[in-house]
């Protein structure tokens, strides 16, 4: 189907960058979740993780199509997803670290879907009407992702010794990466000033108010903040990103322009 997007004013570089961050987060987390297909601990989770991956890839299609339109260089969703090089991706680093186990996958889904709910709520009133429409639609999906992952965080954290230890290890590993979500940067400032969307840092207090009670209920201990910083949304990725892209982009790079 044709995506019709009407953008009357030329988009700023920051506006494009902001939408690409959203699209790339959805794309890369969708790719990671799809790796569970056929490997999840029970069939219900296989379906759940694959369904969430589908939602995210669907959101990524809409967002990257929109970013391509804003950019105005004729790049479509496939070119954006499959033909960019590593340093041009704008996803946060947390999206690209390996799944490791069901605990880490679940904690990551929880941390990010909580953020998504807050962000999509704000973006549903964006002055960018296409982005607002994508946000209103994605919000509904994020709620299901949040509900599902929050329930699992509690079940695993407040579960057996083994599930508790693995989930705590996942939280210890992922927590430092969450600082990247809220770090101040010129892109967010410009976008916020233009009423396109919130600076992500504005969401930190609300986000903590949603995640901390769930971790407490899960008997998990949230680690102290450290000086560690990650810079995925600026295009500086971890050592895991290249491997992920090699898998994700293989088909399009081997058979350029292939359609399926």
């Amino acid at each position, binding site marked *: *189907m*044709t*995506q*019709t997007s009407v953008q009357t004013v030329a988009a700023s570089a920051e506006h494009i960058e902001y939408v690409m961050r959203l699209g790339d987060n959805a794309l890369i987390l*969708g790719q990671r979740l799809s790796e569970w297909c056929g490997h999840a601990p029970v069939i*219900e*989770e296989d*379906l*759940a993780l694959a*369904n*969430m*991956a*589908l*939602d*995210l*890839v*669907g*959101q990524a*299609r*809409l967002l990257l199509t929109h970013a391509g339109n804003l950019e105005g260089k004729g790049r479509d969703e496939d070119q954006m997803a499959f033909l960019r090089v590593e340093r041009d991706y704008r996803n946060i680093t947390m999206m690209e670290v390996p799944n490791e186990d069901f605990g880490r996958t679940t904690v990551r889904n929880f941390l990010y879907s909580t953020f998504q*709910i807050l962000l999509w*709520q704000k973006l549903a009133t964006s002055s960018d*009407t*296409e982005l*607002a*429409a*994508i946000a*209103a*639609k*994605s919000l*509904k*999906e994020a*709620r*299901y992702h*949040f*509900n*599902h992952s*929050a*329930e699992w965080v*509690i079940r695993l954290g407040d579960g057996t010794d083994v599930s508790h230890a693995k989930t705590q290890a996942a939280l210890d590993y992922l927590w430092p990466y969450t600082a990247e979500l809220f770090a101040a940067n010129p892109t967010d400032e410009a976008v916020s000033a233009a009423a396109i969307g919130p600076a992500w840092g504005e969401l930190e207090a609300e986000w903590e108010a949603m995640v901390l009670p*769930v971790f407490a209920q899960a008997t998990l201990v949230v680690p102290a903040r450290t000086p560690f910083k990650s810079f995925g949304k600026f295009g500086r990725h971890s050592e895991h990103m290249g491997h992920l892209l090699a898998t994700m982009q293989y088909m399009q790079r081997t058979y350029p322009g292939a359609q399926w």
Partner: protein
Amino acid sequence: MLTEDQAWKLLDSVPDPEVPAVSVVELGIIRELHCADDVITVVVTPTYSGCPATEVIGLAIRDTLLAAGVGKVELQTRLDPAWTSDWIGEAAREKLRAYGIVPPTGKAAVGGAQPIHFVKKTLTCPRCGSNDTERLSEFGSTACKATYRCKSCLEPFEYFKPI
């Protein structure tokens, strides 16, 4: 050339590929139809962002109208307002139930409404009518459905999630 009424009736015969008990019209995803000269423009609002059926539905709409003699079919996607399961009408809900899928209960959450943890819905088994049912997973065979089980007749069933 078809009239708009004829086109609507025709599309009401196009089943959703993943939930064939209801048509794409009954699902509420066909937002507008415009007939001009020999061209029909169909405005479609997709359900879930990642629904694999979206493109199949587009093809089915196109094929159905072309087979009825329409010269050209234009498909447009409209995201706003976002599709909601509230748009599934009463008759279609009964068709879903008869097919073995419990239709969405209540109203879909709007605005800032939040889901509440561990609040389980009591669903009635579409096969035996028992209320002794349990949720197996919020995510079922498709993005739009959750998986439940009836503890009386022991059969699994699906629930069309409100969204």
